[in-house]
Each structure stands twice: as structure tokens, then as C-alpha cells.
């Protein structure tokens, strides 16, 4: 057992009647990291955070905080705290009273409480005059900051987040994502964040866990999740991706039903007799032209062209299905719909996902 981890989960199982929401989850969270658990709805991430916070009981397994087992400790005695999706601010209290709530429970003196509340308002860049404001007078972003301040006032060992940004509009969400990352750096606290958006996770996290049907599909740093996913599920979870089936015969010769492969090309992790998926992100696919020869090429007809702001996305219909290509605006392709195009990419920009034989 890795004793350097702050929070450890061992064989955590949660069943609701016949339905198993968590199928034996193991996890180590290191002190001070920003750890994000990502998964589609129904993947068990909300169930997991409810167990971590103490709002639900586990069926099997254990949860450890430092050297103590905490899964039987009630939520109000755990040194952890959660920012709710709804924020769960207390509408009958002012901003200041909300922030001071955990301090008041600990019977801290009013002056000390006030000082701490003002410190937290400063930390979250809210004016001190907000101390006496009512919650109903605060905007969505301000409420978010009040909820954060209240959680920080509790001074938890671990701060949990249950999709607190999901109800906000896009621009505010982007701003708050960066603020949250910044706040993590300034406070040095351990953040465990839950979201269904891998994009959100990428912006903020040190490490990301991808959850699928009650287990972790992959736990890795953000870069690795993006560039080296372990499965089709993880690869497709992070937006657009092109996947091509590849196999190697017993002599090690690589073949594909769709791709034309340059002689002598090697693919990492593809052993003789094995098969799997070759992944290439749309931004790495090139349009063929001139002398440049690619490791992998294929032809198809240009099906559609979509403007994505700074980039343009092309969809190319091939015998192996739709292939997505993205170009910067200035590298726009001079071709019209229905035209025959050849695309290609090199082995270096691909990632091979081995499948069990």
C-alpha cells in the first residue's frame, strides 16, 4: 500500500439493489494535487463522490485518509468538504454568515471569524462589502465564489467538487475554470473534482481518472489521457478522433482494410499476430499534395466543411467511414464538396491502442 497518498480507496463497491454502481474501485490521491474524475452520466462518478464525502455508505471496501480509515466516519466528522453542484448556499444568511458557518460551528470568536471571512473574500476577489450582502443579491459567478470561500473556511484536508460549474454559461465557466486552477495553486489544497467534461478536466487537473460503468478506465496525467488513451472509450471521450483498425500478421507485416501503409512503417506496441486501433487526432491529419509521402494515406470524397472559429473542420467520406480533419483558418483547403481528396499522416503523430487477442 502506497502510504504517501493522502486519500486511498481500496476495493470500493457500491450496490443499489441489484445494480452495481461501483465495481471495486482502487484510487490513490496525492496531497496537494488537482485530481479530476471524468465520466459520462451514469458512470458512477456521483456515487463515488457521495461515498468520499460521507453522504452514502459503501457496500464493500475501504477509504483511508492518511493513516485512518474514514468510510465509517459520518460526514460531519470528516475533515473533508464538498462544493455542491447546486452550491447549497444558505439563502437565509448573508454572504458573511455563509462563509463563517463552519467557523461558528467550531465556536470561534466573532472577531476572528470576521477576519477570516474577509481574508477569504480577498482570496476569491470578492469586495469586502459583500460581507453583508444577501445570497439572492449575488450573481452566478459570485455565488460560486461564496460557496468556495465557505468550503475553504472549513479548512478541509480535501476539497471535493461536484460539477459546480455545469450550470453556468460558457464564458463564465471558462473564467472560473482558470480561477479554480489558480486558487488551487495559491491554497496548496488537495482538490478532487468531478465533471462530465473532459475539456474542463484538461484545463485544470494534474491527473485525470476516466470513469466508465463503475470502474476507472484510465488514470493518468492530462497529456497522457489526450495523446495515449488506453481504449476506444477514452479516445472518443475527448472530442473528435479518427480510429483505424490495424493488424500484424505472424511475420510482423502490418495491414489495414482502409489505410495504405508505406513499406517499412513500424507501429509501437503492435506485436506480430496482434491487432488494435490506430488513433490520430483531426489536427494531425494532412491533405496530401506535392512530393510529401506519408506513412499512412487514404482517399475519400470531401463531405462537409465546418467553421469552428480559429479552425476549420472537414469531414471526408472514406470506405472506412467518416474521417475528421482540422486545419487552421489560414491553412484552408482549396477544394469543394464532393471532390476527391487524399489525406495522410505519419506514425509519429499516432497512438496505437492494442486490443486483446
Amino acid at each position, binding site marked *: 500500500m502506497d502510504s504517501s497518498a493522502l486519500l486511498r480507496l481500496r476495493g470500493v463497491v457500491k450496490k443499489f439493489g441489484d445494480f452495481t454502481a461501483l465495481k471495486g474501485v482502487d484510487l490513490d490521491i496525492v496531497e496537494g494535487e488537482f485530481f479530476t474524475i471524468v465520466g459520462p452520466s451514469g458512470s458512477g462518478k456521483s456515487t463515488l463522490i457521495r461515498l468520499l464525502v460521507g453522504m452514502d455508505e459503501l457496500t464493500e471496501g475501504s477509504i483511508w485518509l492518511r493513516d485512518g480509515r474514514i468510510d465509517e466516519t459520518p*460526514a460531519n466528522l470528516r475533515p473533508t468538504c464538498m462544493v455542491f453542484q447546486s452550491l447549497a448556499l*444558505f439563502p437565509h444568511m448573508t454572504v458573511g454568515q455563509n462563509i463563517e458557518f463552519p467557523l461558528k460551528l467550531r465556536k470561534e470568536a466573532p472577531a476572528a471569524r470576521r477576519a477570516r471571512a474577509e481574508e477569504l473574500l480577498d482570496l476569491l476577489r470578492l469586495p469586502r462589502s459583500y460581507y453583508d450582502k444577501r445570497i439572492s443579491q449575488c450573481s452566478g459567478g459570485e455565488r460560486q465564489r461564496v460557496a468556495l470561500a465557505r468550503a475553504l473556511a472549513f479548512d478541509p484536508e480535501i476539497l471535493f467538487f461536484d460539477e459546480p460549474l455545469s450550470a453556468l454559461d460558457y464564458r463564465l465557466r471558462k473564467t472560473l475554470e482558470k480561477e479554480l486552477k489558480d486558487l488551487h495553486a495559491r491554497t496548496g489544497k488537495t482538490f478532487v473534482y468531478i465533471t462530465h467534461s473532459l475539456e474542463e478536466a484538461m484545463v485544470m487537473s494534474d491527473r485525470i481518472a476516466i470513469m466508465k460503468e463503475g470502474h476507472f478506465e484510465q488514470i493518468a496525467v492530462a497529456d497522457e489521457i489526450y495523446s495515449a488513451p488506453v481504449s476506444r472509450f477514452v479516445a472518443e471521450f475527448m472530442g473528435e478522433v479518427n480510429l483505424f483498425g490495424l493488424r500484424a500478421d505472424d511475420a510482423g507485416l502490418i495491414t489495414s482494410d482502409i489505410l495504405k501503409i508505406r513499406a517499412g512503417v513500424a507501429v509501437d506496441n503492435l506485436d506480430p499476430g496482434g491487432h488494435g486501433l490506430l488513433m490520430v487526432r483531426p489536427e494531425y491529419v494532412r491533405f496530401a499534395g506535392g512530393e510529401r509521402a506519408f506513412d499512412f494515406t487514404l482517399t475519400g470524397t470531401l463531405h462537409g466543411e465546418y467553421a469552428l472559429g480559429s479552425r476549420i473542420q472537414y469531414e471526408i467520406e472514406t470506405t472506412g467511414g467518416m474521417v475528421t480533419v482540422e486545419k487552421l483558418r489560414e491553412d484552408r483547403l482549396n477544394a469543394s464538396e464532393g471532390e476527391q481528396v487524399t489525406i495522410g499522416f505519419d506514425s509519429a503523430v499516432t497512438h496505437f491502442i492494442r486490443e486483446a487477442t
Partner: protein
Amino acid sequence: MRTLDRKLGLLSSLPLAVVLVVSFLAPLVVVAIFSVMPQKVFSLTNMPDFSSYAVFFDQGYYKSLLWSLGMALVSTVILLVVCWPLSYAMAKVFKKFTLVLTIAVVMSLFVSENIRLFGWVLTLMKGGLIEGHIRAWTGVGFDSPLYGVPIIVFGLVYVYLPFMLFPLAQGIAMVPDDTRQAAYDLGATRWQVLWQIEVPLAAPGIVVGSLLSFVLAAGALAESKILGGQAVIAIADDIETAFTFGQNWPLGSALSMILIVIIGGLALFGVSKVDLDAIMGRKR
């Protein structure tokens, strides 16, 4: 166009306004004027002398008022304590069973209050359903709990339970589950969650329920007459007697005015303290 709307609005509110003035305000004004008339007159054209208010203090009617208010207060407090867990369950725990409970409680209102109270008399009296059976089986009897103050309070609690239960359940339904869990997560004990989160957020329901049951209980007379055997006299009983046997309309009016002012003041104070729109399901 604007002025036409306004005219039509005034016009269409006229019938109800007339009905309210004639049937609600007018009798109240008559009672108020009668209350300052000399004793035992039947006309409003006498010289006011406020003698009825002196009688209220001289002849001990204030005791009836204090009994009524006191018993109403005690029964309201008991109702709050009894109904809180039940309302909580109705709002948060019972699912389909809430409907069954609601129908059961509402059904009891279909039977006249007096008949239900007489049912309790038959159940509790000496030789009645309970004591009679126990005496027949064991040979040992006991005194009836009837005809005392506690049984009157019991009667008030029993009769006015629905008026506390439903507003309270409404109020508790307004407490978001997340706020309760967040408070608990932030280190609050169950009691702290109750007092600092649930009670303040359910306040509109608590105030409405308490006002309804207090006001109704303060003006009740059947419980003290039927269950209490007039062990103590309720103020409503005094008012009735003054108007009927006593043939003293000014006294009855004065007693009514005192009760109206106290209860009205209390109701206004209570309502001003909470956001009634919240419980009526409207957003501000």
C-alpha cells in the same frame, strides 16, 4: 387604452368589494360600535360609555381570555412538536403514502367537530369504551380523564392537527436537501442542522401553521364545553353567553373586540415576518 383597462378592472372588482364591505367589514364595525355602548342596550344610538371594557376586568372575564390564550399556546406548541416529524416524513420520506395520510387526515374533517368530540367523550368517560371494558375484564376501574384542562388541550391538539400538519409539510418541502447536506458536511450536528438550517428555511410553514392553529384554538369553545365540562370557561363561551343568555350585546361585543385585536395583531405580526409568497409557490 390604459385608462379603459383600469376602469374595467375597477368595475369587475366591484361585486366582490361590495360583498366584502357588506358581509365582512360592516358587522365588524357594528360590533366595534356596540362594544362601547352602555350595558344591555340593543341600539347603537346611545351615548358611548365604554362600561363593557370595565366589566371585562371587574367581573373576571380576563381569566377566560387568559385560559383561552394559554391553552391555545400550549396546544400550538404541542402541535409543532408532534407535527414536525410527521410533516418531515410527509415532505421527504413517505412517497405515495403521503397521499394516503393526507386523505385520511382530510377525511376526518368531513365529520362535524362536535360529533368527533362526543366520540371522544363516549370513549373516555367513566363506564365508556375504555374504562368500561377494562373494569368489566379486570374489575378495577379508574377515573375518567375528562373534565379537566389537559383533556381540553388534547381536544385542541386533536381538532386542529390538520391546520398545523399541512402548512408545516409545505414549509419543510421548501428546505433544499442540498443545504441540509452541506451544513452537515461543514461539520454541523443533527441538532445544529435542525435549528440553523431547517427551522429558519421552513419558517413560513411554521408561522402559517402556528397562526392557523393558535387563532382557531383561541376562539374555540366546543373542546372546553364538551371535553372539559366547563372546568374552565373559554372566552368564546363567554362571548356566546353574553349574546344569548346574558342578553348583553355590548359586553359580548367588547369581549369580541378584545379577542379580535389580540389575534389580529398577532396574525399581522406573524405574517409580516415571513415571505408568504414563498409558501404559496410564487416567486418574488
